[in-house]
């Protein structure tokens, strides 16, 4: 039984790191623009298809897809925001909502048209690799994905923290008027934030491709998952996203062990409701900004 709990904990931690990468993207977008990207899960799925497609074409492991997913999704996110999204930043939420839902539908539709509705799994000999540590079996694919996710989050964090452009993102999140007053091109910054957020989602998707079978209709679940993590961790807080991701990953794993696996999301939504009502800033959302 002990093995079960420790196994669930490790599993939750590892998948939580990948969740955190998804949520970090959502958070970055929200932090800078105060726009909720309802197409976030769809962007994850794009990354998954990129991972799957590259694996099918070349046999490369999906981790090798990360540069492609980063670049591809960044370009997409940037372009969308620059040409379409920016006009909506100052619009009412419900209007933004429809725009991003529209985008989500388009992406899902394109996936279905190109790849069909069937789930596509990546499976090679490596899929069954495990690391044995002290009697525990740790899924290699999952561990690699978690490590890659952590590295990406760290890189993003460092970029936001130390580069001038990263600081400009932070500045725009902090004080839009001030940013514009000193000549920061907010149109570019917004597009950059959307691009980076999308790139996070895409990279997470590439990492998930060997873990979950890719399907066009998976997306909304990822979106909801990212919402939960971001709210629980704290909107616009990067460590919050990391904490939230791991917390939700572990909580779901434990909920699956302790209660019914099919009801495990009940736990996440319950957590979401409690945090929304009692701690609307989230666990780590007390401070504001994209980079701290």
């Amino acid at each position, binding site marked *: 039984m002990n093995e079960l709990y420790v196994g669930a904990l490790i599993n939750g931690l590892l998948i939580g790191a990948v969740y955190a990468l998804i949520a970090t993207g959502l958070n970055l977008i929200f932090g800078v623009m*105060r726009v*909720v990207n309802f197409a976030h899960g769809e962007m994850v799925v794009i990354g998954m298809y990129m991972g799957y497609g590259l694996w099918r074409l070349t046999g490369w492991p999906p981790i090798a897809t990360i540069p492609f997913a980063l670049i591809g999704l960044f370009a997409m996110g940037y372009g969308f925001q620059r040409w*379409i999204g920016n*006009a909506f930043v*100052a*619009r*009412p*939420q*419900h*209007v933004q*909502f*429809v*725009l991003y*839902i*529209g*985008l*989500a*539908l*388009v*992406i*899902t*539709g*394109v*996936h*279905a*048209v190109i790849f*069909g*509705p069937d789930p596509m799994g990546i499976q090679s000999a490596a899929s069954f690799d495990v690391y044995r540590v002290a009697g525990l079996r740790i899924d290699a694919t999952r561990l690699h994905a978690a490590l890659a996710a952590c590295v990406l989050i760290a890189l993003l964090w460092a970029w936001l923290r130390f580069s001038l452009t990263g600081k400009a993102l932070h500045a725009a*999140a*902090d*004080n*839009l*008027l*001030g940013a514009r007053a000193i000549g920061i091109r907010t149109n570019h910054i917004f597009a950059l934030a959307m691009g980076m957020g999308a790139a996070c989602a895409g990279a997470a998707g590439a990492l998930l491709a060997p873990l979950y079978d890719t399907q*066009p209709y998976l997306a*909304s679940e990822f979106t*909801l998952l990212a*919402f*939960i993590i971001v*709210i629980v961790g704290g*909107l*616009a807080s990067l460590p919050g996203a990391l904490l939230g991701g791991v917390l939700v990953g572990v909580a779901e794993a434990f909920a699956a062990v302790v209660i*019914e696996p*099919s*009801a495990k*999301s*009940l736990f996440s*939504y*319950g957590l*979401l*409701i409690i945090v*929304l*009502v*009692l701690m*609307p*800033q989230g666990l780590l*959302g007390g*401070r*504001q900004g994209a980079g701290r």
Partner: protein
Amino acid sequence: MSRQWWAALVFVAALALLPLGASDYLLSALTLVFIAALVGIAWNLMMGFAGQLSLGHALYFGVGAYTVAILAERYGVTPWIGMGIAFAAGAAIALLIGALGFRFAVRGVYFALLTIAFAEFGRIVFEHWSFVGGTGGFYLKALSATNVPLISLRGGARFNYYALLVTLTFAWWLSVAVVRSAIGYRWRAIRDDEDAARALGVPAFRLKLLAVALSGGLTAIAGGWSGLIGGSLFPDSVLGMRLSIDFIVAPIVGGIGTLFGPILGAFIVVPLNEWSRELAQAAGINGLNLLIYGVLLMAVIIVAPQGGWPWIARRLGLVERVPCRPGEQARNGVAIAASDSTTGDTHGQTSGRTQGQTPSRAQGQTSDRATQ
């Protein structure tokens, strides 16, 4: 009677005469349109007039559907009563969510996410609740030969069509009555600026709860009808997130905060969906419908972010003339766009942006709008 009322009357009369020459399929499709319009009206009361964004209306819809169906099937309670209970159940749940949200000042995006959380929570509960059939679903018995539609409220396509037409007309009338009453004025004040409204003596908490309850109750009735018509209920199909999203697209496309918008939106969105599905099927390309639907949705919101009705109303001259005091005709000669058919560009945005901001950001925002 104003031109708006005449237009409504003509519209309802045309719809009432339609079944004389239409096929069951067309009637059923229109019944779906009516259900979408009904939910749209309900959602619009909450969002368009009281300014509270809900993305979890499927919860009320599903609860209504299950309430009416289970009462009828298991306890033999006529849906006439079941609809009332469904309304009460939907309103009660909405009150609970609203009270929790408003009491703890959960606003804007956060309130929307709270409604999603409750809806998904509700769906999962229903999926694991054997009393309602869980994921196995809940089914209504086939209609017997002795069925009297007016008692069981179940019948063929034509009956369903008229039933929904009557319900929709009633709901529309109700929404007009409420929106044109003092309550409606105060709702819009809350929507535009809650703090300012409260300073003018508007009891925002109570009125927001009223909006939420009315909206939840009406949505539950729509759900009740949908359950009676479909005959089979599954948590995922009557309580799912997808439904919540479908619900709000129509009123947004039609024009939020307008009385005709949700109906117009339903007449645009439902056939559009149906049409794109048929196109995808005819072409044999899976997902083409989503692609078309998504592109059109984005196109609509980019071209007409205020929705279709304000645009049409202006062109048809169906705008409201504000009633005036006797002897002041000259002043009121200028017809203005119906005050209920325009939405502030900023509402929702402000409330959504204030939470979770440092003072500096909030200040930046407000002074941005201040006109110095």
